[in-house]
Structures are given as structure tokens and as C-alpha cells.
């Protein structure tokens, strides 16, 4: 296992270079960041020179990339045009996004598994079909539409929560945006739980458990769920990545000062350094999460032995 972890960590290296190179290349293909300056900003040659220096704009692309990556390894993700450190932006904003994504994950996990289990136990019945349709509606509604509607409903019409921002802290300020964030994935968790549980309940060892005279509840928990949770865990692990990117839209609409909101702003402003910095970070986190998923899967399923 230890070896496996080390190997996986090492595997992240080429992926890290691949993704950062890809993003850096694409962002560079947009043109020099100086092009996005307004003519009035360009009136200041000293400032232009400073920026050119700062972002190594006179170097060939590949040199720029490696200089940038070199800095990344020292923990410096670059600076914005205004001189703000991207690392610092990330550090201050990440906990907010983590809280939001974490809350969303809990919603997914609890609602998803509970509904999934009930749906599996009542396969083909009304609850099963209804939960499927409702869950899928949440996938089908564009996330921003859902966000607007819920914000309007709970924040303005009913006034249960502050419509935006995180001024009320966790959980009140996080619950609605987290639900919006979780809504899309919820259906998947329900479906995977249901599917996987149905498969498990059809296996021979469940029959053995019945032959052993175990109570139905014990069979479901100890035999059914534990075996069916593995694909759910795998999905959730990958989903954290999706939650963090999903936060781009959600944090924007709910004015949650997280990393997604920063990205939202940076996208609007085409601030390449920030975009690359955040993507780099996301990629690393995503890869580490994948690793974590593998480790958890191995813990849940002793048959999985890495290396």
C-alpha cells in the first residue's frame, strides 16, 4: 500500500506537468496578457515594462512556462496584475470552497445513500421511479436556473436564509448553495447506490447471510451496504473535483467568497495567471483525491490490493 501511494504520488507528476502545460499553453494562445490592458493603462510604459518583466513576456513560451513552474514549486503561484499573490488568494479562499464542497458532499452522501437504499428496496415501485425522476430533474435543470430559483425562494420570498454571502456562517449561509451544488450529483449518488445495492443483494453471499439466519437489517447494513458503498465512494471522490468546479457558478450567484468565485471573476477578466494557478491547484487536489479514493476503496474492499 505504501508503495502504491508513493507510486501514485509520482504519477501525479506527469499529469501535473501535462495539465499545467496544456492550460498554460491555451491561456498563452489567448495572446499576451498585455493585450487585455486598456489603452489608458498602456499609457504607462514603465508599468508595461514592469509587467513584461513580472510575467517573463519577452521569453519564449516554453521558458515562460518553466519559469512559472519553477515558481510554483517554491509555493508561488504568481501574482495578479495588481500584484496580489495568487497563492494567498488561494489560501484565503480555499477553506470557504472546501466548506461549501464539504457541505454539498454531506448532502449528497446522506440524501443520496438514504434515497438510493430505499429505492433499491422498492425497486420498480413508485418511490423508486419517483426518486429517479425527481433526482434526474435536478440534473436536467441548469444549475444557475436552480440557483436563482432557490435563492429567490429561500432568500427573498421566504427569508429563511440570507440570500447571499456567508455572513451567517456555517451551516445557515452554506446550506442553499451547497444544495444547489449537490443537486446535480445527488441523482448519481442515488442511482449508483441503488444499482450497486441491487447488485449486491443479488449476490451469493447475501444468500449465505440469510442462510446463516442473520436479521434482515444486519444483512442490509453489514453485507449489502458495505459492499455497495465502494462504487459510491469512487464516485464521490471524483465528484469532489466536480463540486469544486461547480462552485464557479454557484459561488458566483450566492456570492460565496471561495475559489470558484475567484475563478468566475478571473475568467471575466481573463486573468491568465490566476486561472492557471487555480487550475494547477485543482489538478493537484483532484489527483490527491483520486489517490484518497483508492485508499478508501482498499480499506472498504480487502480484495483491492495495490501492488
Amino acid at each position: 500500500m505504501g508503495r502504491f501511494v508513493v507510486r501514485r504520488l509520482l504519477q501525479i507528476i506527469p499529469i501535473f506537468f501535462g495539465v499545467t502545460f496544456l492550460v498554460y499553453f491555451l491561456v498563452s494562445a489567448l495572446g499576451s496578457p498585455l493585450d487585455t490592458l486598456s489603452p489608458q493603462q498602456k499609457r504607462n510604459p514603465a508599468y508595461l515594462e514592469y509587467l513584461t518583466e513580472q510575467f517573463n513576456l519577452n521569453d519564449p513560451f516554453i521558458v515562460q512556462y518553466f519559469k512559472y513552474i519553477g515558481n510554483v514549486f517554491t509555493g508561488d503561484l504568481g501574482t495578479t496584475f495588481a500584484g496580489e499573490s495568487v497563492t494567498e488568494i488561494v489560501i484565503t479562499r480555499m477553506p470557504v470552497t472546501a466548506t461549501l464542497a464539504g457541505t454539498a458532499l454531506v448532502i449528497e452522501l446522506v440524501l443520496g445513500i438514504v434515497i438510493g437504499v430505499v429505492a433499491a428496496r422498492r425497486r420498480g415501485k413508485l418511490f423508486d421511479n419517483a426518486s429517479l425522476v425527481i433526482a434526474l430533474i435536478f440534473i436536467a435543470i441548469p444549475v444557475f436556473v436552480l440557483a436563482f430559483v432557490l435563492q429567490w425562494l429561500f432568500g427573498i420570498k421566504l427569508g429563511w436564509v440570507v440570500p447571499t454571502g456567508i455572513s451567517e456562517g456555517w451551516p445557515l449561509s452554506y446550506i442553499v448553495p451547497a444544495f444547489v451544488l449537490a443537486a446535480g450529483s445527488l441523482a448519481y449518488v442515488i442511482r449508483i447506490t441503488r444499482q450497486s445495492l441491487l447488485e449486491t443483494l443479488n449476490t451469493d453471499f447475501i444468500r449465505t447471510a440469510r442462510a446463516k439466519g442473520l436479521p434482515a437489517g444486519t444483512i442490509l447494513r453489514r453485507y449489502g451496504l458495505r459492499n455497495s458503498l465502494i462504487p459510491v465512494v469512487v464516485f464521490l471522490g471524483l465528484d469532489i473535483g466536480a463540486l469544486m468546479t461547480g462552485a464557479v457558478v454557484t459561488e458566483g450567484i450566492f456570492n460565496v467568497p471561495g475559489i470558484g468565485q475567484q475563478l468566475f471573476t478571473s475568467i471575466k477578466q481573463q486573468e491568465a495567471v490566476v486561472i492557471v494557478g487555480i487550475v494547477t491547484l485543482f489538478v493537484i487536489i483532484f489527483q490527491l483525491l483520486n489517490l484518497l479514493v483508492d485508499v478508501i476503496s482498499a480499506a472498504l474492499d480487502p480484495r483491492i490490493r495495490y501492488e
Partner: protein
Amino acid sequence: MSDLQVEAQSAQAAGPESRTVAADAWYQLRRNWVFWVSVVLIVGISAIVLFPGLFASEEATTSLTGGCQLEDSLEAPGDKFLLGADQQGCDVYSLSIYSARTSVSVGLLTAIGTTLIGSLLGLLAGFYGGKSDSVLSGVTSIFLGLPFVLGAVVLLSSVDLPDIWGVVFALTLLSWATAFRLVRAKTIEAKGQDYTLAARALGAKDLRIMFRHILPNAIGPSIVVAVISLGIFIGAEATLSYLGLGIQPPNTSWGVMISEAQNAFFTAPWVLMVPAGFLTVTVLAFILLGETVSDALDPKLRK
């Protein structure tokens, strides 16, 4: 599968009437109201996409022929406009009907693109394994590691492709990895099956084994996934439009309509709700179809 099922099935297998997986699935689907709902919806949507003229008049969607008068801006649903008018004074209903083609095209083309690319590469990687597999799987991880919105933003801003092709390109590039993984896994599974061994024993060449033996057995799930993704891609286009990156005017799509409708959401909700409704129903129809079919096709769940 329990012995009990084996017994029941092998008893059936002896009879000439035993069914194919597809027939089994069809039997199950036939009795599933959710399936029928999705089929009816998809037929309706297809009709709208193919013959929008049957449902609405194109004239109501353009100012060249008298539609879209600013004085009708945000007219509520009523006699003049069945489902209201948007800010430009265009008939929301007609516009939604005429937007269907773009939205569905994006979904369809992307679904086809991802399935083709993903399947082909997945087949190659799974079949040959070794280095080519490592490289392709590595590339896949890179694409899977690239957050979707981000990737789309960067791709769409740096690649200059006209109208829907840009969106299709970006969505395809960011989504083929799913089909790749699926087909690769299925390929590895099929490759280990005895019928593949038998084909090799007959002297079949790699291409024959891949396309005649493995692909037909490996492609099934990815086609089901493609149906589901078709819906998801239609929604993704809307999200990109919301972020100002999707289809650009003068082309229109449900996503573009929704994006533009935000302005008046609270006073003229129909401008947003009508295209959002069309979108949601369409996405839902494809997802439901995919889900019910995949459920019916899954032999592991069969009782």
C-alpha cells in the same frame, strides 16, 4: 447470480423461445411508464428539431419579417404571445421552438464525437495494453483532471471556431475520457473472454478481433452513456452560454435564451422559464431514456 437463477435460466435455455438480452430488456422497458414518457418526449423533441415550422412560425423570431418589435418587450403570455415575449419583443414560444435545433445538435454532435473518439481510443488502449495504454490512460487522467468549466473557458477562448462547432469541440475534448474509460474497461474484459481467444486461435487479425468481436461487446454501455450524456451536453451548452462562452448570437439556443432571460427573471419569469422548461424536459427525456434502458440491460439486476 444465484444457482436458482441459473437453474431457471438453463431450463429456459433449452427451449427454443429463450430470449436475447435485448428482448429481455424490451420486455422490462415495455412495462415501465418512465420509459414511455421519455420516448414520447424524445419523439416530440425530434419533431420540433426536424420540422420547427410545424409548431411555430419563423417570422415571429426575426425582425426582418415583422417579428421582434421592441414595443412588445416582455409582453406577458396572452393572446398576442402564447408564452409571452422576451425583452426584444420576440415570441418566446417560437424562439424556443427554433432554438431546439441548435441545442439538440450540440448534444447530439458531442455525444457522437465523444463516443467515437472515446470508443476508438479505448478500444486501442484496452486491446493493445502496455505502453499505448499507459500513454492514453495518462492523457485521459489529464483531461479528467481538468475541471470542466475551466477547460471549456480556456478552450473556447483560445480556439476560434464558428458557432456551434466551437462548443461541440470543447465539450467533446473535455468529455471523451468517460467513454474512453468505459470502452477500455469493457475491452479488457472482452479481450479476456474465451471467444476472443477462439478467434485468435482461428488466425483472426487484430483488426478483425477488435471490430468484429470486441467492439460489439464493449460498445453497449458507452452507447447508453452517450444517450444520457446527450442530455447532459445540452445542459452543459446552457451553462457555457450562461458564462458567456457558449453559442454566440445571432445563433440562438435554449442556453442563449436562458442566459439572456436572466435580466427580467423576477418580473417576466416566462422568458427564462419557457426555454428552461424546454431544456429541462429535453435533458430529462434523454437521461430517463438512458437510465431506464441501462437499468433494463443490466443482467446483474435482473430478477
